[in-house]
């Protein structure tokens, strides 16, 4: 569950479930009978209904979900930070206070429900929207986009209540250090001590975090306004026109409604503020795109060719496509097929031997094939390669406790300078392997193993396929005969009496078999 506020920026929030859960909570809060108690907010003349106090919200949460007060407070704060609920007194501070401060609900559209590409096409419009909002605010506040609230506003990632209360009593330390950092960034020559008398006229620290320009210059509405003005300068006519028109349209409503809508918009933009895209952001984007360009891509024509070749090669070998000889055991209850194709069998079938020619991996994976390949290598006096490869496989797939011992054994047998079965590895790989042997783990011999594998594949394997040994194997391989088929398959007599449930009860000749073969029948007989 997202612990923080809605992340700044246009990236679609990756987690959907937490938002739909929140929505359910909010909907149940709205229930007229069992929801939170609603009150009316009284201003000077206008009365606006549908306000709730923080206290009520917390109590309702405690009562409905049987949770402790801290948890209810945290949950309420999350609701506020995601924009479902907004505070009426202090709109910038997005947390829930368990006292009489009033809040109100607002309709919040979950952007997660829109597909991702929609988010990115809406993005330019969102900047435009934000620009229009800032222009409207500018008009309303007569040019001062600074908030005149007594309590300073916080960073978009709001501090916890403990932190915020810490800020107020100790304004000197709070106001100076971030401010000094910022000033250091902007003006290198400005002395740190002169922060309070700085150019921006920061108020003396007694007032608390009052008109704190340097502290949050990056997230200041005025800074956003200027930045947007630079960025979408070409549409500024539209921005101004729309801002004016929207304000005029709003005047057609009652004052209470106008206030509510203005509050809603303010909260929306507090929660969903578009990010300040600094230079770093763009640099990272460029890096990402460059990496994406450099990735190897295979043309679809090439991989389709490979796919076709694979299919045509394997077609005759596939038991479902080309039938299996002697017969399909699932159909005829005859398991000769399985017996003939067992992992270690004396005489392999022809199809199997042909499969060894497809790729080196096929050959090595088949135990019979591997054994014959080993024989071949012994005639060529390079059998230690295959033994080394097998030992490395054992290391990779073996138990963790045996790893050090096995590494040592392999080293002694294959890699040590005067070893009995020394394998020929190039110097660089040998160096790297010897370095890694100091701290043995199961993948320490991977480089060497790969080298030997490629050596065998490029060198010994083609020779094996051309060798007499292989040709003899092909000649000796057995091709099983297909069992004769009867005309009516369902009247087959099974070779071995098996309690096969596949025998249909309706077949006349099958019935006695079924009766004799079924376990109940068998029991009855004995």
């Amino acid at each position, binding site marked *: 569950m997202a612990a923080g506020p809605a992340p700044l920026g246009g990236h679609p929030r990756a987690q959907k479930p937490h938002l739909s859960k929140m929505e359910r909570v909010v909907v149940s809060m709205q229930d007229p009978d069992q929801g939170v108690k609603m009150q009316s907010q009284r201003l000077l003349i206008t009365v606006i209904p*549908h306000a709730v106090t923080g206290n009520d919200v917390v109590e309702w949460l405690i009562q409905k979900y049987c949770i402790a007060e801290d948890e209810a407070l945290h949950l309420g704060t999350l609701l506020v930070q995601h924009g479902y609920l907004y505070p009426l007194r202090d709109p910038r501070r997005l947390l829930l206070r368990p006292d009489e401060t009033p809040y109100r609900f607002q309709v919040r*559209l979950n952007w997660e429900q829109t597909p991702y590409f929609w988010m990115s096409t809406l993005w330019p419009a969102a900047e*435009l929207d934000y620009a229009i909002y800032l222009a409207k605010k500018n008009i*309303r506040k*007569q040019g001062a986009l600074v908030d005149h609230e007594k309590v300073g506003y916080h960073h978009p990632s709001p501090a916890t209540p403990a932190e915020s209360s810490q800020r107020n009593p100790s304004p000197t330390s709070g106001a100076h250090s971030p401010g000094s950092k910022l000033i250091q960034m902007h003006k290198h020559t400005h002395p740190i001590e002169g922060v309070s008398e700085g150019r921006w006229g920061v108020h003396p620290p007694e007032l608390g975090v009052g008109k704190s320009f340097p502290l949050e210059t990056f997230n200041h509405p005025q800074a956003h306004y200027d930045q947007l003005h630079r960025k979408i300068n070409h549409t500024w006519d539209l*921005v101004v026109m*729309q801002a*004016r028109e929207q304000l005029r349209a709003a005047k057609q409503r009652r004052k209470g*409604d106008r206030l509510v809508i203005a509050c809603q918009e303010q909260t929306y933009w507090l929660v969903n503020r578009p990010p300040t895209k600094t230079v770093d952001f763009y640099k990272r984007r460029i890096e990402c795109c460059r990496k994406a360009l450099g990735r190897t891509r295979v043309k679809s024509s090439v991989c389709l060719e490979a796919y076709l070749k694979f299919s045509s090669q394997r077609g005759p070998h596939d038991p479902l496509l080309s039938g299996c000889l002697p017969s399909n055991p699932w159909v005829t209850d005859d398991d000769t097929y399985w017996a003939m194709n067992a992992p270690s069998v004396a005489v392999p079938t022809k199809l199997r031997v042909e499969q060894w020619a497809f790729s080196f991996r096929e050959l090595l994976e088949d135990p019979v094939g591997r054994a014959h390949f080993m024989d071949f290598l012994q005639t060529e006096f390079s059998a230690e390669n295959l033994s080394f490869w097998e030992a490395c496989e054992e290391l990779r797939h073996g138990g963790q406790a045996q790893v050090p011992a096995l590494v040592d054994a392999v080293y002694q047998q294959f890699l040590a300078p005067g070893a009995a079965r020394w394998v020929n590895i190039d110097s660089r790989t040998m160096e790297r392997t010897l370095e890694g042997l100091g701290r043995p783990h199961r993948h320490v011999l991977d480089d060497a193993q790969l080298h030997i594998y490629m050596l065998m594949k490029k060198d010994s394997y083609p020779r094996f396929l051309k060798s007499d040994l292989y040709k003899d194997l092909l000649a000796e391989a057995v091709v099983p005969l297909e069992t004769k088929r009867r005309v009516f398959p369902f009247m087959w007599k099974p070779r071995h009496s098996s309690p096969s449930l596949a025998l249909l009860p309706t077949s006349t000749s099958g019935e006695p078999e079924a009766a004799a073969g079924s376990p109940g029948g068998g029991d009855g007989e004995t």
Partner: protein
Amino acid sequence: MAKEECKALLDALNKATACYHHLVLTIGGSADSQNLREELQKTRQKAQELAVAIRARLTPPLRDRGLGAEERAEFERLWVAFSGCLELLEADMRRALALGTEFPLHAPRRPLVRTGVEGGASGVAARALSARSLRHEGERDFDVEDLHQLEREILKVGEMIQDMEMKVNVPRWTVQARQTAGAELLSSASAGVSSVGGVSVQQRMGPCDLSKALAATIFSAVLLAAVALAVCVAKLS
């Protein structure tokens, strides 16, 4: 003159878009009702008619290669504003569709969110349509049909934008806007009217100033009494 016509139409479209945006803000809240949906439909249909008209007027001059640089710049400015407006309209229409499907009017289970907004928005819609008042005449299942129609209209607007991009080649970043930063503050009449509203809007957010308001009224009452007494004294003497 073609330019004046275009400008007038663009202003009307701007107004319609702003009103539509304003109406979309209240969907799903406590002020949502059949009337609101009807108003939304009327407003967006008007906006679309205006868009088609503007497009018909703006496309020929921009495709005409023999136009002077000044004139062309002017038309390009209008074009950029127009396409921006259309994008805003499309975005708002999509939001309206999403919200409309989430908050159906006649479903028993999901209540509308109680946002505190009451009162109708017919004034807003009337403003968009430049009419005095609006008649509401929908049937019961209006909102469901309306949503289907809204989907179709979104597609149409999307196609229109796409078409516009293809037909007319105006690089947006080269257009120089007339208004500068802070230009919205310079509009005299509306700013004056809105400042009054602005001041009171601002006041509402201060920590509940009931005591201050009370003090102000007492002070003014005392002042009035003092003035009255002074007048009486002056009359008597």
